[in-house]
């Protein structure tokens, strides 16, 4: 029977299946961070269990870590206790941990690919919904809760029900200044925040194939914002090129065997999807969100919607609630919305390519004096690479703050937070109420829109900018 890519990966990991029960799925890689794991380790201890495969498990510190003075103990005692709990647990159960200050530390979804642990055709889980990021490599990767973290630690498996299959096809060429972030924001705006519930999304089509690995990760990352169980992209030469030579990628004859297998990981011609969404790449523009969920987005050329024009009562109420929280007036052009803070970072857009795109726009320019811009690389590796390329100097000279690696203002578990009423343009993935700090207001944007916005202090597309002054030599 013809199969989709996701079905092939799923079927290759079924340990056991029985009528009337969930399948038992083998997990190739389990990523762990400090927030969703302490209760799972406690559960293991209480039951006298061990970690079945420490060598298939990798932990890092990311959510709580400060992005300033990272070599000092964490000032917030509660955050510190959580990070220390992870250190104790990793030591006790023999799990590799990349702590603050380690060369491999960073956001869990940035370091997996960076180390070459994320590989095509594998199953990857983490107590974190953005585990879907790893799907960019053709892995079946999904977020789980803490009870499931405990289950995977103990058994290296997970009971699962077979997901439904959705295809998101994007053909054509993306216009200049339009990125994969805009593609995924457009998809979510079209199908809604739970529109892909129960489904795994496969992104396909010529516009997807043309994307770099970083850009693919951005798309897959936000699959969960459309409610999908996972999102993936068939591996190809771009994937292999990215992985080759990474520390944990296969080497020598193993590499050849792996690539031979990876080449089989494609959806069969006549495989059937349960749902299909089609987008024309050429018609896309930079997208920004105006509301309090990632589905409430529009092309940046649009205006704040008017609830009075919405017939459906539930929908109208949702828009009214969002606008009240966001402090926005219907009809306001999005490009007139002023922001206080620009956040460039997160597992969505905190990779080297994202920093390069933003730095290119900022080079030789100065950000708006009333706007603060935080640049937070997704990992220590990304930070070092950016510094080697001199990007840190571009950011600092433009007036932005160059920080240490972590989740930072994506969710504000560390001191990087919006104040009540403050407004941000953020390259992260969630604009939920209070996500970036109590009372904070978030507009989700791409890295180039973030940089352009920092320059003007208003939501701005790169194309809106006047050409940069030639540098005085």
């Amino acid at each position, binding site marked *: 029977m013809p199969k989709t890519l996701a079905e092939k990966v799923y079927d290759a990991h079924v*340990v*056991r299946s029985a009528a009337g*029960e969930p399948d*038992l799925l*083998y997990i*190739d*890689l389990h990523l762990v961070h400090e*927030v969703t794991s302490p*209760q799972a380790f*406690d559960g293991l201890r209480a039951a006298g269990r061990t970690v079945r495969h420490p*060598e*298939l*498990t990798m932990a890092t510190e990311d*959510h709580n870590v400060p992005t300033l003075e990272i070599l000092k103990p964490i000032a*917030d005692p*509660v955050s510190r206790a*959580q990070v220390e709990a992870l250190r104790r647990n990793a030591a006790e159960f023999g799990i*590799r941990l990349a702590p603050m200050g380690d*060369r491999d530390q960073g956001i869990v979804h940035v370091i997996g690919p960076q180390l070459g*642990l994320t590989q095509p055709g*594998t199953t990857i889980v983490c*107590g*974190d*919904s953005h585990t879907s990021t790893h799907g960019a490599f053709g892995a079946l990767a999904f977020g*789980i*809760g*803490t*009870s*499931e973290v405990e289950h995977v630690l*103990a*058994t*290296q498996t997970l*009971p699962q*029900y077979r997901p439904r299959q959705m295809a998101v096809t994007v053909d054509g060429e993306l216009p200049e200044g339009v990125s994969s972030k805009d593609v995924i924001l457009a998809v979510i705006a079209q199908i*809604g925040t*739970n529109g892909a*519930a*129960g489904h795994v999304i496969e992104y396909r089509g010529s516009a997807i194939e043309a994307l770099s690995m970083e850009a693919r990760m951005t798309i897959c990352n936000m699959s*969960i*914002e459309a*409610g999908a169980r996972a999102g993936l992209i068939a591996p190809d030469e771009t994937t292999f090129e990215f992985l080759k030579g990474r*520390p*944990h*990628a296969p080497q020598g004859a*193993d*590499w050849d*065997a792996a690539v031979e*297998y990876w080449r089989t990981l494609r959806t069969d011609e006549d495989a059937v999807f349960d749902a299909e969404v089609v987008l024309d790449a050429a018609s896309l523009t930079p997208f920004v969100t105006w509301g309090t969920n990632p*589905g409430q987005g529009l092309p940046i050329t649009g205006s704040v919607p008017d609830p009075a024009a919405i017939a459906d009562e*539930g*929908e109208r*109420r949702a828009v009214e*609630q969002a606008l009240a929280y966001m402090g926005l007036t219907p009809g306001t052009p999005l490009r007139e919305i002023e922001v206080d803070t620009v956040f460039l970072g997160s597992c969505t857009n905190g990779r080297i390519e994202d920093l390069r795109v933003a730095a290119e726009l900022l080079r030789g320019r100065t950000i708006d004096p009333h706007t603060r811009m935080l640049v937070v690389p997704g990992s220590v590796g990304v930070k070092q690479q950016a510094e080697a390329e001199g990007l840190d100097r571009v950011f600092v000279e433009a007036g932005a703050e160059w920080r240490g690696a972590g989740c930072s203002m994506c969710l504000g*578990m560390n001191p990087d937070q919006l104040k009540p009423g403050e407004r941000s343009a953020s390259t992260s993935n*969630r604009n*939920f*109420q*209070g*996500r970036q700090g109590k*009372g904070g207001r978030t507009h989700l944007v791409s890295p180039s829109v973030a940089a352009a916005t920092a320059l003007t202090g208003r939501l701005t597309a790169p194309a809106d900018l006047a050409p940069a002054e030639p540098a005085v030599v």
Partner: protein
Amino acid sequence: MDAFTTHTGTAAPLRRSAVDTDQIIPAEYLKRITRTGFEDGLFVAWRTNEPDFVLNQPQYADASILVAGPDFGTGSSREHACWALLDGGFRAVISSRFADIFKNNSTKSGLLTVVLPQAEVEALWAAVEADPTTPVTVDLQAKQVTYGGHGVPFQIDDYTRWRLLEGLDDVGLTERHLPDIEAYEARRPAWLPKSLPALPA
């Protein structure tokens, strides 16, 4: 995990759609390393900033069943959202549609998530708004929600229902299949990734 068979209590009407888990419990409350004590973070922003918020109304203060709009529990995978609802006195949430991870987490933590058609949710909202003392029964054994003389059936897969009725945790169930796991492991190619030892960049 506590078993769930049937529960009777009063219900709070949460007339909001796409309630994400950041609203159920914000990130700053996730720093705790215990499994209980999360009630202080439950809907804390709405409880603090909105005097009319349903759980601020005295007639719903003791509700143990939450009746929410569609797409409840979207966003973060934090199981703390289920724990906060349980710690806050809720045993069941009713909605026309749940986010997958939230629903999955609920079945692991003993919080019952009941899917009813939106029209039934609206009817239940109307009933508990008209009389907040209306007793509502969520019967997992009979797969039925009953209130004020109405009985509304709901679907749940037999396996999950059995696990909830018995209060069984998955790890113990999976351990019975250890031979299958070992057989699978023997077939795994040697080149699959390993995190240990740490290798130089």
